[in-house]
């Protein structure tokens, strides 16, 4: 049985009498420790899939099963790293992570253990040196790292990354991608990542799930990326498997399922 199962999920939104069907019949099974990317053109509903798994949105049809149990409502077992970091500006870096740690592990860990655990997770993303800074005092890449530390600190069963590197410049993005790969190989997390960057998807993922364009978007193709880990971006430049995967995704996105505005 799959670790996480998205089972016949569909969702429609109603606004002023008109109903828009955003997702139809989305099926996806993810094994424990897998890194799965969901890629598609903007507006296709890929973030909606993530929000349904997170429990922030309720599907109109179908449901999500985590370890065989139906998911209802959001919870720390499905931690989200939001696109724009979403750190609370009135708390320091440490307090932001601590808020999550204290909430999740109250009663399980002593105060000292919770403090150590916060520190440990900040060290994991190399942010312990800035623990007393406030979010506005650190760079965008650093904020995103703290967001990742906060999510990791919840010890989630599944980590949900919503375009985590989208707002970063190319160099910072590459650096952060390497860090996420390193964390994934060390901790073996199960990860779903939303992205619109083909290279990012191929480099990081075990599987790339490609979504068709909306309305009523669904999964068009599910591609396995058989590249050994650890992966080094420089060594993959001429790699045939890497290039094939990249070509397959590009072909899907730009030949078979072009963005609606471009196709018109």
């Amino acid at each position, binding site marked *: 049985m799959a670790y996480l199962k998205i089972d016949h999920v569909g969702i429609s939104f109603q606004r002023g009498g008109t109903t828009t069907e955003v997702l139809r019949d989305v099926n996806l099974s993810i094994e424990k420790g897998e890194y799965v990317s969901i890629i598609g053109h903007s507006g296709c509903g890929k973030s909606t899939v993530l929000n349904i798994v997170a*429990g922030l949105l309720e599907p109109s049809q179908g449901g999500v099963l985590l370890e065989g149990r139906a998911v209802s409502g*959001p919870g720390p077992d499905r931690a989200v790293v*939001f696109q724009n970091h*979403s750190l*609370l*500006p009135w708390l320091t870096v440490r307090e932001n992570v601590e808020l*999550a740690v204290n909430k*999740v592990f109250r009663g399980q860990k002593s105060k000292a253990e919770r403090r150590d655990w916060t520190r440990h997770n900040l060290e994991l993303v190399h942010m312990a040196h800035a623990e007393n800074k406030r979010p506005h005092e650190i760079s965008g890449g650093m904020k995103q790292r703290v967001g990742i530390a906060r999510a990791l600190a919840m010890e989630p069963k599944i980590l949900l990354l919503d375009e985590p590197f989208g707002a970063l410049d190319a160099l910072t993005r590459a650096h952060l991608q390497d860090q996420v790969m390193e964390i994934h190989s060390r901790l073996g997390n199960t990860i779903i990542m939303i992205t619109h960057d083909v290279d990012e998807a191929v480099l990081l993922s075990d599987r790339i799930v490609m979504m068709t364009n909306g309305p009523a978007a669904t999964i068009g193709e599910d591609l396995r990326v058989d590249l050994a880990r650890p992966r080094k971006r420089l060594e993959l430049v001429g790699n045939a498997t890497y290039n094939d995967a990249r070509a397959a995704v590009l072909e899907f996105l730009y030949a078979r399922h072009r963005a609606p505005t471009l196709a018109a």
Partner: protein
Amino acid sequence: MVHSARVVALPTPKVAPPAQSAVLHPLAPKPVSVLSRAVHIGKGIVTQLAAPVLTIAFLLVLWQILASSPTSALPSPLKVIDESWEIIIHPFKVGNGIDQGLFWHVTASLVRVGYGYTLAAFVGIGLGVLLGQSTLAMRGLDPVFQVLRTIPPLAWLPLSLAAFRDGQPSAIFVIFITSVWPILINTSVGIRNIPQDYRNVAKVLRLSPIEFFTRIMVPATVPHMFTGLRIGIGLSWLAIVAAEMLIGGVGIGFFIWDAWNSSLISDIIVALVYVGVVGFLLDRSIAAIGHLLTRGTAAQ
């Protein structure tokens, strides 16, 4: 605004005498005497104060010149000091009835503002939270509030006199009804503006309603709240003077009205200085509290 003024007013270092000795002895430690430091700080204060002091002096001289003619309807500054010397040097005088020192008049007004404004702060923030969180309450109450808030403060006074049959609670009610709207509206706007991301964080962490209130809603809304509280205190002070003119008794408003009826124009001018300074201090103190509570993120 204050900050930018400070930056502009920063002393530009003139050619410092120690620089010459440093040229002669490059390895000698730079001499920094207590005296030179004191001079430096003194210079800073002088450059900061120079502009406002000069401006005030200029305005006083202008006023003196304009009001010096024998046919002038208003007294000149020197005449004000001369005629109102008694009330200027005896602010703490305790007499009979309304014959009190200006300090006691201002205190009486401040007490009324204190009651009305505190009530307005609690009700305004409470209703603001309700309106911000509940779309239903917003739909129902917002149109009512939008109409009520446009009613001028003094228009409420006859009605409140009819209801309370006493000056004191009526004045407090007028203060309340004047200052509650900006507090209420700014609080509800602040709550509506809490980014969805923060709400999502709270959901993922499964914060309880109380935790959400203290950890997210209050810190996210306090800057807006203090904008409202600051506008509210300003309006309260505007309203109290007018209200007191009508209800009588001890208070700076009635003092001014009484001085007018006794043709003591100089006393009115002294009282206006008190009103202005106290209003300024009220505004500053609310701003300072806000600054303290928001760790500097609220507008100063």
